[in-house]
Protein backbone atom coordinates (compact mmCIF):
# COMPACT_ATOMS: atom_id res chain seq x y z
CA UNK A 1 0.00 0.00 0.00
CA UNK A 2 1.18 3.51 -0.85
CA UNK A 3 -0.33 6.78 0.34
CA UNK A 4 -0.69 9.84 -1.89
CA UNK A 5 -1.57 13.25 -0.49
CA UNK A 6 -2.91 16.39 -2.23
CA UNK A 7 -1.95 19.15 0.21
CA UNK A 8 -3.73 21.79 -1.87
CA UNK A 9 -7.01 20.29 -0.64
CA UNK A 10 -6.07 19.81 3.06
CA UNK A 11 -7.80 22.05 5.63
CA UNK A 12 -6.56 20.18 8.70
CA UNK A 13 -9.86 18.58 9.72
CA UNK A 14 -7.80 15.76 11.31
CA UNK A 15 -10.14 12.85 10.60
CA UNK A 16 -7.07 10.87 9.44
CA UNK A 17 -5.26 11.62 12.69
CA UNK A 18 -8.14 10.28 14.79
CA UNK A 19 -8.42 7.23 12.51
CA UNK A 20 -4.74 6.22 12.25
CA UNK A 21 -2.38 8.31 14.44
CA UNK A 22 0.48 5.89 13.67
CA UNK A 23 0.30 6.91 10.02
CA UNK A 24 -0.93 10.53 9.95
CA UNK A 25 -0.09 13.67 11.85
CA UNK A 26 -1.56 17.14 11.35
CA UNK A 27 0.94 19.97 11.67
CA UNK A 28 0.14 23.62 12.47
CA UNK A 29 1.47 26.02 9.84
CA UNK A 30 2.65 29.63 10.20
CA UNK A 31 0.20 30.52 7.49
CA UNK A 32 -3.28 29.11 6.87
CA UNK A 33 -4.73 25.69 7.60
CA UNK A 34 -2.86 22.93 9.45
CA UNK A 35 -1.63 20.28 7.01
CA UNK A 36 -1.50 16.52 7.10
CA UNK A 37 1.89 14.79 7.26
CA UNK A 38 2.36 11.12 6.45
CA UNK A 39 4.48 9.38 9.09
CA UNK A 40 4.57 5.96 7.43
CA UNK A 41 4.70 5.95 3.64
CA UNK A 42 4.26 2.18 3.47
CA UNK A 43 2.16 1.27 6.49
CA UNK A 44 2.19 -2.37 7.66
CA UNK A 45 -0.70 -4.70 6.84
CA UNK A 46 -2.37 -4.38 10.25
CA UNK A 47 -2.91 -0.63 9.69
CA UNK A 48 -4.35 -0.90 6.17
CA UNK A 49 -7.98 -0.99 7.22
CA UNK A 50 -7.65 2.18 9.28
CA UNK A 51 -5.71 3.95 6.52
CA UNK A 52 -8.53 3.08 4.11
CA UNK A 53 -11.01 4.60 6.55
CA UNK A 54 -8.90 7.74 6.89
CA UNK A 55 -8.96 8.14 3.11
CA UNK A 56 -12.67 7.39 2.85
CA UNK A 57 -13.82 9.73 5.62
CA UNK A 58 -11.49 12.64 4.81
CA UNK A 59 -13.98 15.44 4.07
CA UNK A 60 -11.77 16.92 1.35
CA UNK A 61 -10.55 13.84 -0.56
CA UNK A 62 -6.94 14.67 0.36
CA UNK A 63 -5.77 11.06 0.71
CA UNK A 64 -5.48 8.56 -2.12
CA UNK A 65 -4.47 4.98 -1.34
CA UNK A 66 -2.62 3.06 -4.04
CA UNK A 67 -2.73 -0.71 -3.71
CA UNK A 68 0.47 -2.63 -4.53
Amino acid at each position, binding site marked *: MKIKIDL*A*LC*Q*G*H*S*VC*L*SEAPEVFDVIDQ*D*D*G*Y*PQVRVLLENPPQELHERVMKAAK*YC*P*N*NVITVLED
Partner: protein
Amino acid sequence: MIQNVVASVKLPPKVSGEKQGSGHMEEFGVNFARFMMRCNAECGELAEFNMGGQQTVLMSGPEAQEAFFKTLDLKLSRAAAYQATVPVFGKGVIFDAPPDKMKAQLKIQVDALRYQNMKNYSTVISQEVEDWVASWGDEGELDFLDEFLRLTLHTATHCLLGKDFRDRMTEEFRELYHALEKGLQAIAFVDPYMQQPVFEARDKALVRLQALIGGIIAERRASSHIEYGDALETFMAGTYTDGSQLTENEITGLVIATMFAGHHTSSGTATWTLTELARQKEYSAEVSEELQALFKSASEITLESLREIPKLEAFIEEVLRLHPPLVLLMRRVIEDIDYNGTLIEAGKTVAISIYGSHRNTDYFPDPEKFDPYRPKPDTLFAYIPFGGGPHKCAGNAFAMMQMKAIFAALLPRYEFELVDPDETYQDDLSAIVLKPTGPCRLRYTKRT
Protein backbone atom coordinates in the same frame (compact mmCIF):
# COMPACT_ATOMS: atom_id res chain seq x y z
CA MET B 1 -5.10 26.61 -16.85
CA ILE B 2 -4.77 30.25 -15.95
CA GLN B 3 -1.45 31.96 -16.64
CA ASN B 4 -0.07 35.46 -16.50
CA VAL B 5 -0.94 37.44 -19.57
CA VAL B 6 1.82 38.14 -22.03
CA ALA B 7 0.02 39.16 -25.19
CA SER B 8 -3.65 38.38 -25.52
CA VAL B 9 -6.25 39.77 -27.84
CA LYS B 10 -9.29 37.58 -27.46
CA LEU B 11 -11.94 38.73 -24.98
CA PRO B 12 -14.83 36.66 -23.59
CA PRO B 13 -17.99 36.74 -25.79
CA LYS B 14 -20.78 38.97 -24.52
CA VAL B 15 -24.26 37.78 -23.61
CA SER B 16 -27.18 39.34 -25.54
CA GLY B 17 -30.01 41.34 -24.02
CA GLU B 18 -27.98 43.98 -22.19
CA LYS B 19 -29.96 47.08 -21.19
CA GLN B 20 -28.72 50.65 -21.01
CA GLY B 21 -27.59 51.43 -17.45
CA SER B 22 -28.58 48.27 -15.59
CA GLY B 23 -27.09 45.73 -18.01
CA HIS B 24 -28.45 42.24 -17.24
CA MET B 25 -29.32 43.09 -13.63
CA GLU B 26 -33.07 42.66 -14.12
CA GLU B 27 -32.91 39.25 -15.79
CA PHE B 28 -30.29 38.18 -13.26
CA GLY B 29 -32.52 39.29 -10.37
CA VAL B 30 -35.58 37.38 -11.57
CA ASN B 31 -33.88 33.99 -11.75
CA PHE B 32 -30.10 34.07 -11.76
CA ALA B 33 -29.63 30.32 -12.13
CA ARG B 34 -31.72 30.23 -15.33
CA PHE B 35 -30.01 33.38 -16.56
CA MET B 36 -26.61 31.74 -16.17
CA MET B 37 -27.76 28.65 -18.04
CA ARG B 38 -28.78 30.95 -20.88
CA CYS B 39 -25.33 32.65 -20.79
CA ASN B 40 -23.61 29.27 -21.06
CA ALA B 41 -25.91 28.02 -23.84
CA GLU B 42 -25.38 31.19 -25.85
CA CYS B 43 -21.63 31.82 -25.36
CA GLY B 44 -20.04 28.57 -24.15
CA GLU B 45 -17.20 28.15 -21.66
CA LEU B 46 -16.76 31.89 -21.04
CA ALA B 47 -19.71 34.31 -21.14
CA GLU B 48 -19.52 37.96 -20.16
CA PHE B 49 -22.52 39.84 -18.81
CA ASN B 50 -23.10 43.17 -17.07
CA MET B 51 -24.36 43.25 -13.51
CA GLY B 52 -25.32 46.88 -12.93
CA GLY B 53 -21.96 48.11 -14.26
CA GLN B 54 -19.86 45.22 -12.95
CA GLN B 55 -18.61 43.17 -15.90
CA THR B 56 -18.91 39.52 -14.90
CA VAL B 57 -17.51 36.48 -16.71
CA LEU B 58 -19.29 33.18 -16.17
CA MET B 59 -16.88 30.22 -16.35
CA SER B 60 -18.59 26.90 -17.26
CA GLY B 61 -17.49 23.29 -17.53
CA PRO B 62 -15.11 21.30 -15.30
CA GLU B 63 -11.91 22.70 -16.83
CA ALA B 64 -12.88 26.35 -16.37
CA GLN B 65 -14.34 25.58 -12.94
CA GLU B 66 -11.11 23.88 -11.86
CA ALA B 67 -9.18 27.00 -12.95
CA PHE B 68 -11.63 29.14 -10.95
CA PHE B 69 -11.13 27.04 -7.80
CA LYS B 70 -7.37 26.60 -8.05
CA THR B 71 -6.26 30.12 -8.95
CA LEU B 72 -4.63 31.83 -5.98
CA ASP B 73 -6.52 34.30 -3.83
CA LEU B 74 -3.94 36.91 -4.86
CA LYS B 75 -5.25 36.83 -8.43
CA LEU B 76 -8.89 35.86 -7.95
CA SER B 77 -10.04 37.42 -4.71
CA ARG B 78 -12.91 36.11 -2.63
CA ALA B 79 -12.60 39.08 -0.28
CA ALA B 80 -13.20 41.64 -3.02
CA ALA B 81 -16.21 39.71 -4.36
CA TYR B 82 -17.88 39.22 -0.98
CA GLN B 83 -17.67 42.74 0.51
CA ALA B 84 -21.43 42.57 1.13
CA THR B 85 -20.65 40.36 4.13
CA VAL B 86 -18.51 43.03 5.85
CA PRO B 87 -21.35 45.01 7.46
CA VAL B 88 -23.00 41.67 8.43
CA PHE B 89 -20.00 39.97 10.07
CA GLY B 90 -18.45 43.22 11.31
CA LYS B 91 -15.21 45.14 10.77
CA GLY B 92 -12.01 43.12 10.66
CA VAL B 93 -13.77 39.78 10.17
CA ILE B 94 -12.91 37.31 7.35
CA PHE B 95 -13.31 39.23 4.07
CA ASP B 96 -12.51 42.53 5.83
CA ALA B 97 -9.39 41.22 7.61
CA PRO B 98 -5.85 41.55 6.20
CA PRO B 99 -4.88 38.31 4.36
CA ASP B 100 -2.84 36.81 7.24
CA LYS B 101 -5.60 37.48 9.77
CA MET B 102 -8.27 36.17 7.41
CA LYS B 103 -6.32 32.92 7.04
CA ALA B 104 -5.96 32.62 10.82
CA GLN B 105 -9.71 33.20 11.32
CA LEU B 106 -10.64 30.60 8.71
CA LYS B 107 -8.27 28.16 10.40
CA ILE B 108 -9.90 28.80 13.79
CA GLN B 109 -13.29 28.21 12.15
CA VAL B 110 -12.07 24.78 10.96
CA ASP B 111 -10.68 24.05 14.44
CA ALA B 112 -14.29 24.22 15.68
CA LEU B 113 -15.19 21.47 13.18
CA ARG B 114 -12.58 18.95 14.27
CA TYR B 115 -13.27 15.51 15.65
CA GLN B 116 -13.90 16.22 19.35
CA ASN B 117 -16.36 19.03 18.62
CA MET B 118 -18.06 17.02 15.88
CA LYS B 119 -18.82 14.27 18.38
CA ASN B 120 -20.57 16.82 20.61
CA TYR B 121 -22.43 18.31 17.65
CA SER B 122 -23.87 14.95 16.57
CA THR B 123 -25.30 14.49 20.08
CA VAL B 124 -26.67 18.04 20.08
CA ILE B 125 -28.38 17.57 16.72
CA SER B 126 -30.08 14.31 17.63
CA GLN B 127 -31.29 15.88 20.91
CA GLU B 128 -32.73 18.82 19.00
CA VAL B 129 -34.53 16.46 16.61
CA GLU B 130 -35.99 14.55 19.59
CA ASP B 131 -37.30 17.79 21.14
CA TRP B 132 -38.71 18.81 17.77
CA VAL B 133 -40.73 15.64 17.09
CA ALA B 134 -41.84 15.23 20.73
CA SER B 135 -45.15 17.04 20.09
CA TRP B 136 -45.92 15.56 16.67
CA GLY B 137 -48.34 12.80 17.66
CA ASP B 138 -49.32 10.02 15.24
CA GLU B 139 -50.04 12.13 12.21
CA GLY B 140 -50.25 15.69 10.99
CA GLU B 141 -49.30 18.25 8.40
CA LEU B 142 -46.52 20.82 8.62
CA ASP B 143 -44.82 23.44 6.47
CA PHE B 144 -41.33 21.96 6.50
CA LEU B 145 -39.70 25.04 4.99
CA ASP B 146 -40.56 26.80 8.21
CA GLU B 147 -39.92 23.80 10.42
CA PHE B 148 -36.42 23.15 9.11
CA LEU B 149 -35.49 26.85 9.30
CA ARG B 150 -36.33 26.71 12.99
CA LEU B 151 -34.70 23.32 13.63
CA THR B 152 -31.43 24.30 11.97
CA LEU B 153 -31.39 27.69 13.73
CA HIS B 154 -31.65 25.70 16.97
CA THR B 155 -28.93 23.21 16.03
CA ALA B 156 -26.65 25.99 14.76
CA THR B 157 -26.96 28.16 17.88
CA HIS B 158 -26.67 25.10 20.13
CA CYS B 159 -23.47 23.86 18.41
CA LEU B 160 -21.99 27.34 18.14
CA LEU B 161 -22.96 29.06 21.36
CA GLY B 162 -23.69 26.15 23.68
CA LYS B 163 -26.61 24.76 25.65
CA ASP B 164 -26.98 27.74 28.01
CA PHE B 165 -27.43 30.17 25.18
CA ARG B 166 -29.72 27.82 23.25
CA ASP B 167 -31.96 27.36 26.31
CA ARG B 168 -32.13 31.10 26.87
CA MET B 169 -32.53 31.93 23.18
CA THR B 170 -34.88 34.91 22.98
CA GLU B 171 -37.21 36.36 20.42
CA GLU B 172 -34.81 39.32 20.33
CA PHE B 173 -31.97 37.09 19.13
CA ARG B 174 -34.16 35.68 16.34
CA GLU B 175 -35.13 39.18 15.23
CA LEU B 176 -31.53 40.42 15.24
CA TYR B 177 -30.39 37.45 13.24
CA HIS B 178 -33.25 37.95 10.81
CA ALA B 179 -32.31 41.63 10.35
CA LEU B 180 -28.77 40.56 9.44
CA GLU B 181 -30.14 37.98 7.00
CA LYS B 182 -32.15 40.66 5.23
CA GLY B 183 -28.97 42.74 4.95
CA LEU B 184 -27.43 40.12 2.69
CA GLN B 185 -29.76 40.31 -0.29
CA ALA B 186 -28.82 40.66 -3.96
CA ILE B 187 -28.58 44.49 -3.95
CA ALA B 188 -25.98 44.27 -1.16
CA PHE B 189 -23.64 42.71 -3.70
CA VAL B 190 -23.90 45.87 -5.80
CA ASP B 191 -23.38 48.30 -2.88
CA PRO B 192 -23.88 47.24 0.75
CA TYR B 193 -23.64 50.83 2.04
CA MET B 194 -26.41 52.57 0.08
CA GLN B 195 -29.10 54.42 2.05
CA GLN B 196 -31.73 51.73 2.60
CA PRO B 197 -33.92 50.91 5.61
CA VAL B 198 -32.83 47.21 5.46
CA PHE B 199 -29.19 48.22 5.71
CA GLU B 200 -29.87 50.59 8.63
CA ALA B 201 -31.67 47.75 10.42
CA ARG B 202 -28.75 45.46 9.63
CA ASP B 203 -26.23 47.87 11.19
CA LYS B 204 -28.30 48.29 14.37
CA ALA B 205 -28.76 44.53 14.67
CA LEU B 206 -25.02 43.90 14.40
CA VAL B 207 -24.21 46.37 17.20
CA ARG B 208 -26.80 44.75 19.48
CA LEU B 209 -25.65 41.23 18.62
CA GLN B 210 -22.04 42.19 19.34
CA ALA B 211 -23.17 43.35 22.80
CA LEU B 212 -25.19 40.13 23.41
CA ILE B 213 -22.47 37.69 22.36
CA GLY B 214 -19.78 39.93 23.89
CA GLY B 215 -21.66 39.47 27.18
CA ILE B 216 -21.42 35.68 26.92
CA ILE B 217 -17.73 35.90 26.10
CA ALA B 218 -17.10 38.08 29.16
CA GLU B 219 -19.15 35.67 31.32
CA ARG B 220 -17.10 32.73 30.09
CA ARG B 221 -13.78 34.48 30.55
CA ALA B 222 -14.77 35.08 34.19
CA SER B 223 -15.43 31.35 34.74
CA SER B 224 -12.64 29.88 32.66
CA HIS B 225 -12.63 26.42 34.29
CA ILE B 226 -15.85 25.22 32.61
CA GLU B 227 -15.63 23.11 29.43
CA TYR B 228 -18.33 23.78 26.85
CA GLY B 229 -17.36 21.72 23.81
CA ASP B 230 -18.97 24.23 21.46
CA ALA B 231 -17.59 26.43 18.69
CA LEU B 232 -17.51 29.58 20.84
CA GLU B 233 -15.03 27.86 23.16
CA THR B 234 -12.79 27.07 20.18
CA PHE B 235 -13.09 30.61 18.80
CA MET B 236 -12.19 32.09 22.21
CA ALA B 237 -9.12 29.86 22.51
CA GLY B 238 -7.89 30.63 18.98
CA THR B 239 -4.89 32.87 18.40
CA TYR B 240 -3.24 34.76 15.56
CA THR B 241 0.33 33.86 14.56
CA ASP B 242 1.73 36.46 16.99
CA GLY B 243 -0.08 34.72 19.85
CA SER B 244 -2.73 37.41 20.37
CA GLN B 245 -6.36 36.42 20.82
CA LEU B 246 -9.35 37.50 18.75
CA THR B 247 -11.27 40.55 19.97
CA GLU B 248 -14.86 40.12 21.20
CA ASN B 249 -16.21 41.62 17.98
CA GLU B 250 -14.03 39.33 15.87
CA ILE B 251 -15.30 36.30 17.79
CA THR B 252 -18.89 37.50 17.36
CA GLY B 253 -18.17 38.00 13.67
CA LEU B 254 -16.94 34.42 13.34
CA VAL B 255 -20.09 33.17 15.10
CA ILE B 256 -22.28 35.13 12.66
CA ALA B 257 -20.21 34.04 9.65
CA THR B 258 -20.49 30.40 10.68
CA MET B 259 -24.25 30.71 11.20
CA PHE B 260 -24.61 32.25 7.76
CA ALA B 261 -22.51 29.54 6.16
CA GLY B 262 -24.51 26.74 7.74
CA HIS B 263 -28.06 27.78 8.50
CA HIS B 264 -29.99 28.40 5.29
CA THR B 265 -27.82 26.00 3.33
CA SER B 266 -28.71 23.22 5.77
CA SER B 267 -32.38 24.07 6.13
CA GLY B 268 -32.86 24.33 2.36
CA THR B 269 -31.15 20.98 1.83
CA ALA B 270 -33.14 19.31 4.61
CA THR B 271 -36.41 20.63 3.19
CA TRP B 272 -35.55 19.43 -0.30
CA THR B 273 -34.37 16.06 0.99
CA LEU B 274 -37.62 15.43 2.83
CA THR B 275 -39.67 16.65 -0.13
CA GLU B 276 -37.81 14.35 -2.52
CA LEU B 277 -38.23 11.47 -0.04
CA ALA B 278 -41.98 12.09 -0.17
CA ARG B 279 -41.88 12.31 -3.94
CA GLN B 280 -39.46 9.51 -4.94
CA LYS B 281 -41.32 6.62 -3.33
CA GLU B 282 -39.22 3.88 -4.90
CA TYR B 283 -35.92 5.21 -3.56
CA SER B 284 -37.26 6.45 -0.24
CA ALA B 285 -38.55 2.97 0.63
CA GLU B 286 -34.98 1.66 0.30
CA VAL B 287 -33.58 4.52 2.36
CA SER B 288 -36.15 3.96 5.13
CA GLU B 289 -35.40 0.23 5.22
CA GLU B 290 -31.69 0.95 5.50
CA LEU B 291 -32.26 3.38 8.37
CA GLN B 292 -34.71 1.10 10.19
CA ALA B 293 -32.10 -1.66 10.15
CA LEU B 294 -29.31 0.62 11.37
CA PHE B 295 -31.08 2.76 13.96
CA LYS B 296 -33.44 1.06 16.37
CA SER B 297 -33.41 3.97 18.81
CA ALA B 298 -32.25 7.59 18.95
CA SER B 299 -29.38 6.67 21.31
CA GLU B 300 -27.75 4.76 18.45
CA ILE B 301 -27.22 7.99 16.52
CA THR B 302 -23.54 8.87 17.02
CA LEU B 303 -20.78 10.38 14.91
CA GLU B 304 -19.44 6.86 14.25
CA SER B 305 -22.76 5.23 13.36
CA LEU B 306 -23.63 8.12 11.03
CA ARG B 307 -20.55 7.69 8.89
CA GLU B 308 -21.72 4.80 6.77
CA ILE B 309 -25.30 5.02 5.45
CA PRO B 310 -24.77 4.47 1.71
CA LYS B 311 -28.35 4.69 0.41
CA LEU B 312 -29.19 7.80 2.42
CA GLU B 313 -25.88 9.37 1.37
CA ALA B 314 -26.51 8.71 -2.31
CA PHE B 315 -30.03 10.13 -1.93
CA ILE B 316 -28.77 13.35 -0.26
CA GLU B 317 -26.01 13.68 -2.87
CA GLU B 318 -28.60 13.57 -5.64
CA VAL B 319 -30.66 16.19 -3.78
CA LEU B 320 -27.54 18.39 -3.61
CA ARG B 321 -27.01 17.90 -7.34
CA LEU B 322 -30.50 19.02 -8.33
CA HIS B 323 -30.91 21.60 -5.57
CA PRO B 324 -27.43 22.94 -4.68
CA PRO B 325 -27.85 25.40 -1.79
CA LEU B 326 -25.37 27.89 -3.23
CA VAL B 327 -26.26 28.42 -6.85
CA LEU B 328 -23.30 30.60 -7.80
CA LEU B 329 -19.84 31.52 -6.53
CA MET B 330 -17.85 34.65 -7.34
CA ARG B 331 -14.31 36.05 -7.28
CA ARG B 332 -12.92 39.48 -8.24
CA VAL B 333 -10.11 39.49 -10.80
CA ILE B 334 -7.14 41.31 -9.19
CA GLU B 335 -4.54 40.66 -11.93
CA ASP B 336 -5.26 40.15 -15.65
CA ILE B 337 -5.54 36.46 -16.39
CA ASP B 338 -5.32 34.37 -19.53
CA TYR B 339 -7.68 31.46 -19.74
CA ASN B 340 -6.65 29.30 -22.71
CA GLY B 341 -5.88 32.37 -24.80
CA THR B 342 -8.77 34.57 -23.68
CA LEU B 343 -8.03 37.66 -21.61
CA ILE B 344 -10.06 38.24 -18.46
CA GLU B 345 -9.14 41.71 -17.30
CA ALA B 346 -8.44 42.90 -13.76
CA GLY B 347 -11.49 44.57 -12.21
CA LYS B 348 -13.98 42.13 -13.70
CA THR B 349 -15.81 39.54 -11.64
CA VAL B 350 -15.68 35.84 -12.50
CA ALA B 351 -18.50 33.52 -11.49
CA ILE B 352 -19.36 29.87 -11.69
CA SER B 353 -22.86 28.40 -11.62
CA ILE B 354 -23.12 25.28 -9.50
CA TYR B 355 -26.75 24.91 -10.56
CA GLY B 356 -25.69 24.94 -14.22
CA SER B 357 -22.73 22.61 -13.69
CA HIS B 358 -25.03 20.02 -12.11
CA ARG B 359 -27.21 20.10 -15.22
CA ASN B 360 -24.35 19.70 -17.70
CA THR B 361 -25.57 16.85 -19.92
CA ASP B 362 -21.99 15.70 -20.66
CA TYR B 363 -21.77 14.56 -17.05
CA PHE B 364 -25.42 14.22 -15.99
CA PRO B 365 -27.51 12.82 -18.86
CA ASP B 366 -31.24 13.54 -18.49
CA PRO B 367 -30.27 16.06 -15.79
CA GLU B 368 -33.74 16.81 -14.36
CA LYS B 369 -34.33 13.14 -13.58
CA PHE B 370 -33.84 12.24 -9.91
CA ASP B 371 -31.54 9.21 -9.84
CA PRO B 372 -29.35 8.50 -6.80
CA TYR B 373 -27.61 5.71 -8.75
CA ARG B 374 -26.37 7.81 -11.66
CA PRO B 375 -22.61 7.30 -12.26
CA LYS B 376 -20.19 9.75 -10.63
CA PRO B 377 -18.30 12.04 -13.06
CA ASP B 378 -14.61 11.19 -13.56
CA THR B 379 -13.60 14.74 -12.58
CA LEU B 380 -13.80 16.46 -9.16
CA PHE B 381 -14.99 19.66 -10.84
CA ALA B 382 -18.38 18.76 -12.34
CA TYR B 383 -20.27 17.80 -9.15
CA ILE B 384 -19.47 20.70 -6.82
CA PRO B 385 -22.19 21.23 -4.18
CA PHE B 386 -19.52 22.35 -1.68
CA GLY B 387 -17.24 24.02 -4.22
CA GLY B 388 -13.73 22.57 -4.60
CA GLY B 389 -10.01 23.14 -4.36
CA PRO B 390 -8.29 24.84 -1.43
CA HIS B 391 -11.35 26.91 -0.47
CA LYS B 392 -13.91 24.12 -0.54
CA CYS B 393 -16.65 24.55 2.07
CA ALA B 394 -14.98 23.62 5.38
CA GLY B 395 -18.39 22.69 6.80
CA ASN B 396 -19.09 19.93 4.30
CA ALA B 397 -18.55 17.08 6.80
CA PHE B 398 -20.65 18.88 9.41
CA ALA B 399 -23.41 19.47 6.88
CA MET B 400 -23.56 15.83 5.77
CA MET B 401 -23.44 14.65 9.38
CA GLN B 402 -26.31 16.98 10.28
CA MET B 403 -28.45 15.81 7.35
CA LYS B 404 -27.84 12.15 8.20
CA ALA B 405 -28.56 12.73 11.91
CA ILE B 406 -31.88 14.39 11.08
CA PHE B 407 -33.07 11.66 8.71
CA ALA B 408 -31.72 8.80 10.84
CA ALA B 409 -34.02 10.08 13.58
CA LEU B 410 -37.03 10.91 11.39
CA LEU B 411 -37.40 8.16 8.79
CA PRO B 412 -37.50 5.06 11.00
CA ARG B 413 -40.47 6.63 12.81
CA TYR B 414 -42.47 8.53 10.21
CA GLU B 415 -43.60 8.31 6.62
CA PHE B 416 -44.03 11.47 4.58
CA GLU B 417 -46.32 12.45 1.72
CA LEU B 418 -46.78 15.50 -0.47
CA VAL B 419 -49.87 17.55 0.38
CA ASP B 420 -49.98 19.75 -2.73
CA PRO B 421 -49.73 18.74 -6.41
CA ASP B 422 -46.24 17.41 -7.23
CA GLU B 423 -45.34 20.18 -9.69
CA THR B 424 -45.91 22.96 -7.11
CA TYR B 425 -42.75 21.95 -5.20
CA GLN B 426 -40.18 24.03 -7.14
CA ASP B 427 -36.79 25.67 -6.60
CA ASP B 428 -37.06 29.26 -5.41
CA LEU B 429 -34.34 30.87 -7.48
CA SER B 430 -34.87 34.44 -6.32
CA ALA B 431 -32.88 34.07 -3.09
CA ILE B 432 -29.12 33.83 -2.53
CA VAL B 433 -29.50 30.39 -0.94
CA LEU B 434 -31.67 27.87 -2.76
CA LYS B 435 -34.80 26.45 -1.13
CA PRO B 436 -38.20 25.24 -2.28
CA THR B 437 -40.85 27.86 -2.89
CA GLY B 438 -42.90 28.03 0.29
CA PRO B 439 -45.00 26.80 1.85
CA CYS B 440 -43.62 23.29 1.60
CA ARG B 441 -46.42 21.24 3.10
CA LEU B 442 -45.91 17.56 3.85
CA ARG B 443 -48.08 15.09 5.72
CA TYR B 444 -46.46 12.74 8.23
CA THR B 445 -47.78 9.43 9.58
CA LYS B 446 -46.22 7.42 12.36
CA ARG B 447 -45.01 3.98 11.26
CA THR B 448 -46.64 1.07 13.01
